[in-house]
C-alpha cells in the first residue's frame, strides 16, 4: 500500500484534522466490496479497451460518497503503478448538463502525469474508448489552496497563471450511459488534457467574458464563453478547493486545474481540434489514428 505518510492519496475520503492526518477507510479490510467490484470493472474496461456496463449497478445511482471512494481506489492503483498526480478536473459545470444529470453541484476527478499533452503534440485516439473534446481554462496554482472555506479571492491569489486548454473526456461506461455516480467513479470521465503555452495572469482578466470557439476542419464545432462555466471559471475552482479540502485532498502549489467546459463537448475525431479563447490564446489537440489500431 502507500507508504508512511503520503497524506492525500492513501485512500481516505474523510478529512479529520487540519494537520493533514486522515482516516483511511478505502483500502482497509472493511472497504465495501461493491466499491472494489466497481473499480475492477472500470479497470478492466480501461485495460481491454472494451467499455463496461454502468457501475451504478454496483454502487447505486445517488451515493456520491461511494462513487468518490471508487474513484480513489482507481487513483491509488494508478499511483502504485508509478503515476503521479499533476492536478484535478472539474466536471458538470454547465447548468444544462447538471440538469441532465439531476445534480446541482459539479464533480471532480484527478489528472495524472500520463494524461497531459502539449499544444500540437500528436495524441493517439487509440488510447481512448469514446473520446470527446471541450475547451476550458486551466488554472496553475502558485501556492497551496487548501482551505475548506476557500472563496474566489483565495483562488485568484493562489493562481499563478491560466492557460487555454482542451480537455479530452472519455467514459469507460459503454455508450456514455452515465449517471452521476458512474462518472464520479470513473474519475469524472477524464481522458487527457492538452495545455496551451501562453500563460496569462488573472490580473485584470474577466474570465466570464472570454469567448471560446473550438474548430475542427476549419469550422466551429463548439462555441461558448467563460460564463458557461458556473458563471465564471474562478467560481468553479473555488468550489473544487473547498470540496477537495473537505475530502482531505487539498489543492497544492503546482497543480493544474481544469475548470470546466466553456461550451458543449463534441466527439473527438482524427485531425486538429483548434481552441481559441479570446484574450487567452489558443491550443490545438492533434488527434491521430494508429494504422490497424481500429476495430
Amino acid at each position, binding site marked *: 500500500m502507500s507508504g508512511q505518510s503520503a497524506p492525500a492519496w492513501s485512500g481516505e475520503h474523510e478529512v479529520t484534522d487540519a494537520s493533514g492526518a486522515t482516516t483511511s477507510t478505502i483500502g482497509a479490510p472493511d472497504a465495501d466490496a461493491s466499491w472494489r467490484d466497481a473499480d475492477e470493472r472500470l479497470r478492466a474496461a480501461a485495460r481491454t479497451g472494451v467499455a463496461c456496463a454502468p457501475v451504478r449497478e454496483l454502487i447505486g445511482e445517488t451515493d456520491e460518497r461511494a462513487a468518490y471512494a471508487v474513484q480513489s481506489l482507481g487513483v491509488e492503483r494508478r499511483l502504485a503503478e508509478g503515476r503521479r498526480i499533476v492536478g484535478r478536473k472539474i466536471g458538470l459545470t454547465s447548468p444544462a448538463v447538471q440538469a441532465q444529470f439531476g445534480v446541482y453541484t459539479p464533480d471532480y476527478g484527478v489528472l495524472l502525469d500520463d494524461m497531459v499533452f502539449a499544444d500540437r503534440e500528436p495524441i493517439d485516439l487509440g488510447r481512448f474508448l469514446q473520446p470527446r473534446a471541450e475547451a476550458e481554462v486551466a488554472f496553475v496554482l502558485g501556492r497551496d489552496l487548501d482551505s475548506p472555506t476557500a472563496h474566489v479571492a483565495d483562488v485568484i491569489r493562489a493562481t499563478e497563471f491560466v492557460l487555454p486548454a482542451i480537455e479530452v473526456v472519455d467514459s469507460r461506461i459503454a455508450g456514455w450511459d452515465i449517471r452521476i455516480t458512474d462518472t464520479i467513479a470513473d474519475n469524472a470521465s477524464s481522458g487527457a488534457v492538452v495545455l496551451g503555452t501562453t500563460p496569462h495572469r488573472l490580473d485584470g482578466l474577466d474570465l466570464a*467574458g472570454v*469567448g471560446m*470557439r473550438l474548430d475542427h476542419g476549419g469550422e*466551429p464545432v463548439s462555441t*461558448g*464563453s467563460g*460564463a458557461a462555466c458556473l*458563471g465564471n471559471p474562478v467560481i468553479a475552482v473555488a468550489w473544487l478547493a473547498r470540496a477537495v479540502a473537505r475530502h482531505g485532498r487539498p489543492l497544492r502549489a503546482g497543480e493544474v486545474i481544469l475548470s470546466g467546459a466553456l*461550451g458543449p463537448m463534441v466527439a473527438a475525431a482524427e485531425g486538429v481540434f483548434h481552441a481559441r479563447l*479570446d484574450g487567452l490564446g489558443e491550443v490545438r489537440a492533434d488527434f491521430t489514428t494508429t494504422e490497424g489500431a481500429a476495430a
Partner: protein
Amino acid sequence: MTAASAFAAALDRAQRTASPTTQLAADAAIGLDAAYATQHALLARRVARGERIAGLKLGFTSRAKAQQMGVDDVIIGTVTDAMRLENGGVFDVSTAIHPRIEPEVAYLLGDDLDDPALAASDAVGAVAGVAPALEVIDSRYRDFTFSLDDVVADNASAAAFAIGPWRSPEAVWPLDNRAVRLEIDGRLSQAGSTAAILGDPVRALDAALRLARRHGFALRAGMVLLAGAATVAVPLPARGVVTAHVAGLGEVSVRANGDGGAR
C-alpha cells in the same frame, strides 16, 4: 389567388391574431422559390398596411440553431419598422404565439449593397455600424415545427428586434470570437460566442448578398442586417428584462410585458 398569396394570407392572419397555423408543406416541399415568393407576398401585405422595410435578417447561421430547428441551410428574411423596439423598449408578448429571443450582432449598411458590380469582398466596406442586438422570433406554425420551406415562407420567424448602440466597424473588428451573454432579469440564461454566427459574423455580409441576389431582396443604405444568433433561442418569459451582452461591443435589452406594454 396564387398559392403564394394564399399561403401569405394564412401566415399574415396567424401573425395578426397571434394564433398558430398549420405547416404549408409538412409532407411535401413547396420549393424554395415558392417559399420566397410567399415571403415577398407576406411582406407586400404588411407594406400595404403602412409598414416600411427596415432591413434583412439571416436565419440558421449556427450549427446549434440549425440542429435545434432540424434544418441545414442559411435563410433570409425581412424586418420592418413595426418590428423595431427601442433599446430597453417593451415587447408585448400577447401579440406573439410562442416567442423566443436570441442574442445577435447587427450591421448598419452605409451604402447600397446590391449593386451587381459589387464584389462580395466589398460588402464589408459597406458597413457603417456594428451593434449588439436582440431578436424575438415567433414561428407562426403550431409547436414551432416547420420545414425549411415553411420557415422561409414565414419570413424566417421574424417578430421583433432591438439594437444597441452602433459602433464603428473599424473600432470593433474582428468579431470572430466575442463572448456573448443572454440574461433574463440579471440571471445568466445562455453563454456563447459570436463564432457561432457562420464561424465569424463578418461572413453574414457575404451570405446576405448571395441570398439577396438569388431571391430578390434589396440591400440598401440605411438598412439593418441581423447577422444571426450567437446562442440558441430561449422562450421569452411573460414578463422580465432580457439583456444581450457582446464583449467589446456593448449590450441591448428588451422588456417583456404580458400586459400590453402598459407599464
